[in-house]
């Protein structure tokens, strides 16, 4: 079965520091992968999606970037975090419904 691994579960970072969140997938090959962000008590905002290695589509221009260096690896990055980057970051893959990872709660202080 397909599984998604995300880490860390929680993260507290100072403003201006860099960020790297990693998502890895098992049990499937060439998946469509997605990064979503959820603000506290809010809906899910699509940030990036990727249909293959090196292919990234950005949905919302902002302080973040994404990369897909390997088929089953999707990375979300920032060079300098802003307070507004705080939120719950979720990686997902698409296979008759999205399967989400357990997410990373990021607090920028």
């Amino acid at each position, binding site marked *: 079965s397909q599984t998604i691994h995300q880490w860390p579960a929680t993260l507290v970072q100072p403003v201006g520091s860099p960020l790297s969140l990693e998502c890895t997938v098992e049990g499937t090959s060439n998946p*469509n992968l*997605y990064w*979503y962000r959820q603000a506290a*008590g*809010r*809906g*899910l905002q*699509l940030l990036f*999606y990727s*249909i293959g290695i090196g292919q990234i*589509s950005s*949905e919302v221009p902002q302080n973040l970037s994404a990369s897909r260096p390997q088929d089953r690896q999707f990375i979300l990055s920032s060079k300098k975090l802003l307070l507004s980057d705080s939120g719950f970051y*979720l990686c997902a893959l*698409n296979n*008759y*419904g*999205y*399967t*989400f*990872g*357990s*997410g990373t709660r990021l607090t920028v202080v």
Partner: protein
Amino acid sequence: GQQVMQIPQYQHVQEGEDFTTYCNSSTTLSNIQWYKQRPGGHPVFLIQLVKSGEVKKQKRLTFQFGEAKKNSSLHITATQTTDVGTYFCAGGGFQKLVFGTGTRLLVSP
């Protein structure tokens, strides 16, 4: 761009009461999916509807896709405390989904 709205935003019911959340899209959808997110957790896929007017049931949950494929509903009969969470609809093509704003359900024993 495509927008998906849900009402109500929040509902608090007594255990045993029924609950319904409604989902409305600004554009015609190829399919509609429903997800449940428990407090502190990640969204979990419940079901997908594809056909106009389609109705599907999962135990106490009934999902309906509108005839015009622009709206959908989720009805829970005789709620239980385990139904607590936020319910999201999501619509769109294969490559990416647009999530609704969500309905948060609280059930009191």
